[in-house]
């Protein structure tokens, strides 16, 4: 078998193993929360009989290992159970929220990633001159301001004063794509500003590192133009660290944007998880944890695989 296939399948297997370990941790973590689920559903007024009935109904009397495997097999078949608080089907509610989160993350990423890489390349081309300094200054400033403040500033100036976009980024199925994009314009802008700097700096650093190599000097001596050298010769060798940091930022766009969701009232995963944690709705918390873990592990796995594929020594073994 081709060594690259072996490497890739090793990565995938490792990712699945990691996901399984995460599922054990999530399950154990929710088990050691004080109080049991039946108690937190029924609250203070719980009678012993009602507690016993509910425990039996939820299968809380089974040993933890049995419950874990019941939960895991359910989850593998897409059955995440129902929310304890309002009886809604978790897979359905979560699916809608996840869809919204991915929609927002997708549009933020599709703007932020090319823009960050382009700005990084530009910064290298004009390194230590004013375009480099301006790009670094602006992106570092935007990453340093807390995201909720950027959000409020945009709401005040763009939504309230100018009235260009809506301050409430609530989307639903009855809206057309154009309406949805207009609704999420402001949160997308905030997210782009937040993730831009990290990726831009990494692109710049990685390429500058490669620029020290002898073959770049050769390319320059051959008379290639500055940008051509960077894009055609330096960039391919710097892909691996750039992809890594891009993936980390994509993961952040999916799992870490609860503050932006709150400011723009966006119906994403973050708010959904926070609401259920505060009500001790364990099945939902477990399901969200599993989805978040899968996203993180999946994106990091992609980064690994791209790094492998971008390495000619692995692609063309002797």
């Amino acid at each position, binding site marked *: 078998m081709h060594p690259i296939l072996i490497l890739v399948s090793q990565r995938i297997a490792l990712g699945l193993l990691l996901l399984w370990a995460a599922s054990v941790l999530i399950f154990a973590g929710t088990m050691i929360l004080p109080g049991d689920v039946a108690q937190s559903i029924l609250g203070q007024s719980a009678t012993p009989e009602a507690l016993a009935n509910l425990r039996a109904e939820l299968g809380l009397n089974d040993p933890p290992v049995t419950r874990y495997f019941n939960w895991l097999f359910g989850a593998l078949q897409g059955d995440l159970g129902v929310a304890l608080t*309002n009886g809604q089907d978790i897979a359905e509610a979560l699916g809608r929220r996840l869809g919204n989160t991915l929609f927002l993350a997708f549009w933020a990423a599709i703007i932020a990633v090319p823009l960050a890489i382009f700005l990084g390349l530009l910064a290298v081309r004009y390194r230590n001159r004013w375009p480099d300094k301006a790009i670094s200054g602006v992106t570092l400033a935007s990453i340093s301001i807390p995201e909720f403040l950027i959000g409020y500033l945009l709401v005040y100036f763009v939504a309230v004063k100018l009235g260009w976009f809506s301050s*409430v980024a609530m989307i639903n199925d009855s809206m057309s794509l154009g309406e949805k994009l207009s609704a999420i314009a402001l949160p997308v802008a905030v997210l782009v500003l937040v993730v831009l700097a990290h990726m831009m700096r990494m692109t710049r650093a990685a390429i500058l590192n490669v620029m020290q190599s002898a073959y770049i000097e050769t390319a320059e001596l051959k008379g290639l133009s500055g940008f051509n050298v960077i894009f055609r010769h330096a960039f391919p060798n710097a892909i691996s660290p750039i992809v890594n940091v891009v993936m980390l930022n994509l993961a952040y766009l999916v799992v870490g944007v609860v503050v932006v969701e709150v400011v723009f*009232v966006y*119906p994403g995963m973050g708010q959904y998880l926070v609401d259920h944690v505060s009500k001790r709705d364990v099945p939902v918390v477990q399901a969200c944890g599993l989805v978040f873990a899968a996203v993180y592990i999946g994106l990091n796995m992609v980064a690994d695989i791209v790094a492998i594929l971008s390495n000619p020594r692995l692609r063309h073994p002797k």
Partner: protein
Amino acid sequence: MTVKIDQNQIDYLKVRAGMGRISRREFIGRMGALGVSAAVAGTFYAQAVHAAGPVKGGIMRMGVSGGESTNSLDPALAASPVPYNVLNQFGETLVNVDETGGLEMRLAESVEASADAKTWMFKIRSGVEFHNGKPLTAEDVMRTMERHSNEDSKSGALGIMRGITSMKVEGDMFIVGLDTPNADLPFLLGDYHLMIQPDGGFDSPAAGIGTGPYMVEAEEPGVRYLFKKNPNYWDSSRGHVDEVEILSINDTTARMGALQSGQVHLVNRVDPKVAALLDRAPGLAVKSVQGPGHYVFIMHCDTEPFLNNDLRMALKYAIDRKDMVDKVLRGYGSVGNDMPVNASYPLFDDSIPQREYDPEKAAEHYKKSGHDGSPIILRVSDVAFPGAVEAAQLFEQTAKAAGIPLELKREPGDGYWSEVWNVQPFSASYWGGRPVQDQMYSTAYLSTADWNDTRFKREDFDALLLQARGELDQDKRKALYSQMGMMVRDEGGLICPMFNDFVEGVSDKVQGWVADPTGELMSGTASHKCWLTA
């Protein structure tokens, strides 16, 4: 400068505005051309539109704080503002408490009591249909009440159903029997949890089927709810807009932004800190309505050093209520009088003298109490009420001026309601208020009440409470409540510095707004009674 204003033109424009033919912007513009200032023109517009009566149609959007993704459409489980408003769109109770504190008949056509106020008969309205097409019967009413009062009930209304010993149906009459006389029973059955559902909602409690003016069209807990007008609604005086959308916006700044940018027409819970600023923004107004909710400092009457009434009086005189209303509520509230009731309650006696800040009297009582001078510990946390820590600091200062050594102890917000409130002898807290005085006193001042958070245990008070509850003569009842209020004020463990208002933001496109002290957003009926103009 004198400007000749063409009255005919103005009247013509007013008529057009009343008919909804021209927009507010156009109206003000054309008035301006006639030499009428924008402020005056705005008033003319509102008058003209209001005089013409409700305009039908449009989508009314409300930005409401206090909703979670865990919310359900089951009326029994509602506890926060979003579910409260959602229930009021699709559901209806037997009666409502109207904005004057009186009873308004809804699904009950009339109410009658036996002479001893122990049996109550509700005649159920005929010709009312549920959203699923089923006609409303007295049986549905009884089943609903059963679901909220039976053994497995998790209803928020369980407490008020406790006095009911029997329920039966005779034709279109729903008859309730009580263990002790209660003249307030209809008010209690107006509780918002008791929305009448087909067959009591036993088979599917969260179906969202009721008899209300709007039908549930889309439900996304913690995000939004959409309602369409119920074409078969029985009361043509309500339900002017075609659709109602409730957006759950918990972040205060986001909610204010949504109102300012015109994305919503109504918002609840405007932060008093920004209310004055917001009121100056164009296109909207901030409405402040006196409500029954109050912020309190509570002492346990049965625990040292609060066992001594002189010490309790010393602390009551040592608090500057006016200053607190100005600084903590920024004027969006009213001073308390160490009783849990105010003028928003029916049968309130407003001749009871207001207690003022009086450091000399406080010092006198303090001296008489013989307190040893050790610090008196007041436990407080930000979750007790908005601005609780600041209020306690003001209290500390004014008490110091009277020579009373008050010491604040900050408690963590997590666990405050289980570890501090109703456990520690002196702490900060709040009460949301109840529709009638009897319910407020029964919940927190009856000797045997679970939530007697001041440990006020007086047999004579309990006897008065029971007597007032069974008294059908309103004048006599008022006198009894006045007597009870005085007892709590002069001998109880409650220090009530202020009642907080409902502070709400209303777009000037909304007409028909009235101040309703019984609940937020016109006690959940803003969308039934208001209408939208261009």
